[in-house]
């Protein structure tokens, strides 16, 4: 686990000003700067630093899968050899239909899966086909797998990062 980079009050103010989105205007960072009360240069420097340290994963567009017709979303879960879990996770994470891949603890015997990959497709059949691609990639190091389709969103408030 990487250590937590130091975030100061100005960084927090920048996060607060941008967590809902970047202004859509000719000088968006200047607008953020005006809200925070520092110069545009400082905002850009700090955001650049947060991007470098991984506090910001990336800046860009987050598509709404459902609106774009990607209505099949499956959480694929796999029981893979610990010794190869890292390299397999990395390989699965690079597939372009996988949005996230994680290693997580097992809860043996009820839950034996340690590799999770969210797979997206236009419908369930497409997700099933994509799970087959993941299964093939995992090869001999994978003992079992399943797809858990979501049937209902029970709550979705989003993460409020800073108050």
């Amino acid at each position, binding site marked *: 686990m990487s250590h*937590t980079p130091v*975030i100061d009050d100005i960084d927090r103010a920048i*996060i607060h000003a*941008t*967590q*809902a*989105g*970047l202004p*859509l*205007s*000719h*000088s968006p*960072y200047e607008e953020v700067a005006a809200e925070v009360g520092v110069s545009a240069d400082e905002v*850009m420097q700090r*955001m650049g630093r*947060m991007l470098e*340290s991984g*506090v*910001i*994963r*990336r*800046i*860009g*567009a*987050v*598509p709404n*899968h*459902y*609106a*774009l017709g990607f209505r099949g979303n499956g*959480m694929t879960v796999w029981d893979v050899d610990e010794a190869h879990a890292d390299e397999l*996770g990395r390989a*699965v*994470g690079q597939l*372009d*239909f*996988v949005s*996230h*891949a*994680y*290693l*997580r*603890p097992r*809860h043996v015997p*009820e*839950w034996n899966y340690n590799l999770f990959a*969210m797979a997206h497709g236009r419908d369930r059949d497409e997700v099933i086909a994509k799970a087959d691609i993941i299964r093939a990639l995992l090869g001999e190091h994978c003992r079992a797998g*399943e797809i*858990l*389709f*979501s*049937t*209902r*969103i*029970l*709550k979705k408030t*989003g*993460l*409020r*990062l800073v108050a």
Partner: protein
Amino acid sequence: MMTRVSSIELDHTDRTIINALQGGFPISAHPYAEVAIDLGIGEEELIARLKRLLDDGVLSRFGPMYHAERLGGGLTLAAMKVPDGEFDQVNEAVNAFPEVAHNYARDHDFNMWFVLATETPERIEETLAEIEAATGHKVYNMPKSQEFFIGLRLEL
């Protein structure tokens, strides 16, 4: 599946914008102008299209994506095996916790999956214990030990 069946019409330029902007965005004085040049459109058109894509819900957001744990809070995925007859009441009890950010029903024995986001890492264990006490069911904590986050690229 409870989805809004909408058919949003995207033209070639919309698709190009969405494909291009999933990868990254400049930090500069006039970033939209820069991106617009690469896309062969005007800055105003790019901004107007992004506004429309956000208004129509094609994009859920545009801007920096922050890494929650690196801001000092706690985050985990947790799952429960809820008996069918109790699903609604357990759902209500779980959702009542403000720390529960997302909650999904899934077709499996492990049928309830939620993300907990807490102000401090210590609050994760406490909240899990409180949810067990409130529901009378075991909560399986599945914090990530490793993350491979490349980000989905929907090729449109």
